[in-house]
């Protein structure tokens, strides 16, 4: 149905094609963590087998090669998201959460005072809420929230009033619960008009759609490796070099300094100023390989595939089950991702997921680290199926079939 040859592609993902006897794996939880292809595992393996050494210090050959591979991964990742200066503006972190915390600490503590306004949205992941709530407690900043509209998109009607006088506007680019892809342009325009910087949580967008941080005219962009076919333990913050220059360091230690005396230190230059200690070298290299993989398949093809598949899924699910209520916008090539959250009338999400697991179907049940959004939706939890490039109609058909067991069990 789309340009992707999913059958061939799936073969490159070891966990998805392992023989599991009579219980094949139907993996519908890529929004939580995607599966890495063999190429990513090979890149990390090859690093450890042929050239592992600590980076940036050794003058011997394998240490230089380790450094070269690490820095090559940084540049690859930077180009992937359209960074104007990939070698200076991409800071490796352990995940998106740490990237956002870096902004809250290094930029936030340096720039925010009591009463300053930070604007977030009601659909944020805890990763883009709690760091700011912590600053609220510490500094007395004021938090405001862009509300969710009835169409499951952010309601921008009151945007100008909301962001007036704000110092930072932080929004997710794509919701990990609703599948909403946020229209960033008006938010960025309003934020910049009032002098605020813009932080975008790209954890759910970078794996699925082409990102261009320069064209989007944003200031900070956070992503996480394990949702974009990479390993766990690696993520990144991109920020405009001018901003990074003015920010104090985040964590202190080795690697992030250019000089240390007993009475003081001089921070290193970008990007290492923000990378204290030995970085996750193999993981960064693995993420570089994931970026190569995504580029080779093509973000446009991935996006088109997911749009078609989410359309198929929504149609099948709602046609087969009156008791399903979907929390998310209608299919749309630009404004909707492959995340499907739903309520199954009369059955708690935990029970739905438990029953599906018996058929080897992996979906997530819970608040998805977005408790304020759950309150807005008026539920304690949802069941969430999320799609990626390696999913196809057979996975959706399995989900639809598995839900029949849920219905049978709970209506008996």
């Amino acid at each position, binding site marked *: 149905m789309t340009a992707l040859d999913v059958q061939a592609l799936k073969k490159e993902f070891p966990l998805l094609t392992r023989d599991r006897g009579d219980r094949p794996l139907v993996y519908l939880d890529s929004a939580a963590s995607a599966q890495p292809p063999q190429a990513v595992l090979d890149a990390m393996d090859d690093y450890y087998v042929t050239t592992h050494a600590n980076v940036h210090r050794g003058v011997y050959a394998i240490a230089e090669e380790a450094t070269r591979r690490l820095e090559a991964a940084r540049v690859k990742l930077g180009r992937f998201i359209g960074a104007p200066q990939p070698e200076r503006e991409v800071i490796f972190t352990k995940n998106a959460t740490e990237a956002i915390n870096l902004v809250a600490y290094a930029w936030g503590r340096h720039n925010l005072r009591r009463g300053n306004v930070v604007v977030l949205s009601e659909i944020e992941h805890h990763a883009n809420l709690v760091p700011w709530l912590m600053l609220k407690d510490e500094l007395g900043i004021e938090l405001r929230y862009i509300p969710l509209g009835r169409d499951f998109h952010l309601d921008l009607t009151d945007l100008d009033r909301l962001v007036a006088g704000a110092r930072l506007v932080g929004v997710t680019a794509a919701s990990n619960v609703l599948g909403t892809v946020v229209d960033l342009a008006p938010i960025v325009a309003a934020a910049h008009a009032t002098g605020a910087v813009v932080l975008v949580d790209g954890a759910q967008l970078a794996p699925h759609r082409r990102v261009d941080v320069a064209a989007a005219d944003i200031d900070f962009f956070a992503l996480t490796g394990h949702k974009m076919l990479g390993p766990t333990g690696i993520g990144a913050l991109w920020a405009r070099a001018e901003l990074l220059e003015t920010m104090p360091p985040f964590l202190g230690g080795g690697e992030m300094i250019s000089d240390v005396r007993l009475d003081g230190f001089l921070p290193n230059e970008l990007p290492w100023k923000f990378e204290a200690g030995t970085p996750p070298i193999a993981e960064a290299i693995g993420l570089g390989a994931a970026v190569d993989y995504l580029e080779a398949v093509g973000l446009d093809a991935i996006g088109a595939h997911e749009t078609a598949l989410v359309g198929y899924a929504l149609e099948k699910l709602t046609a087969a089950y009156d008791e399903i209520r979907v929390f998310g916008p209608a299919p749309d090539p630009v404004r909707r991702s492959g995340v499907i959250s739903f309520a199954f009338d009369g*059955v*708690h*999400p*935990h*029970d739905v997921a*438990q*029953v599906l697991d*018996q058929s080897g179907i992996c979906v997530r*049940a*819970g*608040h998805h680290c977005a*408790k304020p959004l*759950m309150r807005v939706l008026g539920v*304690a*939890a949802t069941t969430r199926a999320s799609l990626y490039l390696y999913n196809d109609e057979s996975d959706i058909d399995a989900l639809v079939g598995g839900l029949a*067991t849920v219905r049978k*069990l*709970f209506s*008996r």
Partner: protein
Amino acid sequence: MNELEDLYREIILDHYRSPRNRGELPVPPAHRVEGFNPLCGDEIVIFLDVRDGVLEDLKISGRGCSISQSSASMMSAAVKGLPVDEVHRLVRSFKSMMTIEGPPANAGAPDEPTVEPVDPATLGELGALQGVVKFPVRIKCATLAWNALTQGLDEIAVGSAGGA
């Protein structure tokens, strides 16, 4: 399907659909205690009316999955009217059934006498929850109400000790 039917016994689904002792009690004289399952956002509120060392009445509100709700409902039916020390004994038996292997991790703590393994048959309806043990993630659901109950009884004990 067999494992599933072991988890979702008919009696469990019955308590889920028609929970016993649901509602609230006026506070005071009743004592109110909350329990949360941070994993899934489930929450439970228990209202306890303890008089002269007897759990005269209790009501339960909140929301959650079939396992947490039915466990709470069965618990309420089992403990209502019991002397508090018998309630504690039942809690220990139930939690012993809910451990994956051997006695609970906190067994042997000064205020937590070690319990012998419990024969689920002696627990009446509650024995139906035994199937949960095969699904370790769900044990937290099954014990949510019981932990809240223990906490509530402890708070009442401390309160009345302080008042004495």
